């Protein structure tokens, strides 16, 4: 218990950051691809639209966690690809720990409620 990390960041923002950083840890992607990958990976439970994705991406870019650069998509169209920076990778590790800890805590509560 003592070794577990507290969930310090606001839940909603933290989960959105985790989702984006986690899919970018796999490979660089453009905005639409990021949203699509998150939807696929979570079975549609977590989804991002334009209004929620881009303010988050720009804010993460300003903080230096991701870096965007224009490049050509397989379709031949110019798209802005985001990739994780070393600072983003450092941010992702504690986020993952926080969320594991958070869900373990919720599971314990759920079991308590079932008992």
């Amino acid at each position, binding site marked *: 218990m003592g070794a577990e990390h507290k969930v310090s960041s606001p839940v909603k923002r933290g989960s959105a950051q985790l989702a984006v950083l986690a899919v970018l840890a796999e490979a660089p992607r453009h*905005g*639409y691809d990021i949203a699509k990958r998150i939807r696929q990976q979570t079975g549609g439970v977590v989804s991002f*639209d334009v209004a929620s994705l881009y303010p988050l991406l*720009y804010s993460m870019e*300003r903080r*230096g966690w991701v870096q965007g650069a224009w490049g050509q998509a397989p379709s031949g169209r110019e*798209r802005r690809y985001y990739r994780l*920076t070393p600072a983003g990778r450092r941010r992702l590790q504690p986020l993952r720990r926080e969320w594991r800890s958070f869900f373990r805590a919720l599971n314990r509560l759920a079991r308590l409620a079932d008992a």
Partner: protein
Amino acid sequence: MPDWEELVGRRLGRMKLEPEERQEVVAEVAAHLEECYQELCAAGSPDPEGYTLAQVPDWKALGRRIQSSKEGPMNQTIRIVLCGLLAGAVAVILGLSISRLAGVEVHSVLAAARLSSALPGWSGAIFHLPAGILMLWLYTAIRPKYGPGTKTAAVAGLALWAITALTLAHWSSMGIIPRDFLLVGVAVAMPAWVAGAVTGAWFYEATERKPVQALKAA
């Protein structure tokens, strides 16, 4: 198919970003919507455009959120306040220096007009500081239209000078300050406020936070 870039550009029209940065955001959001639209069309959606546009229920709010994400809301406010204070300080120091060179003792004139009996001598200088913040805010408001730099800063400085001149003229018409002082005050305030605005705007631009440049090399 709708012209997504035109549509997004029109709907995010009031977003206060640099033209290049704004264009980049518009292109990126438009590409996202276009891809979403094409995917919906391929899936046989009955209203692909409607479903695509439903992603953005409030374009003004999206513009504000993007702007704030790009600039950082606290960062922006702190920069306006600090650079505004600097602009006000430069204006008051320069104004007093020019007045002294012109042989006008501002405090003596105000004392003679019995204004300083109600307020301490330094109060006039203090009033310049919030005025400097107001001027810097004005600079940031007109910057997206006129572009960053000396010219836009000078316009903001001249706007504040016009307010100062009108206030002095009003006081003069009421007999609170002598007409000679009005003329000197109006003449001195112009270079002082323009120089203050240019200095404040220069620091504002110099302190702009861009994505960490070093990361580009990583």
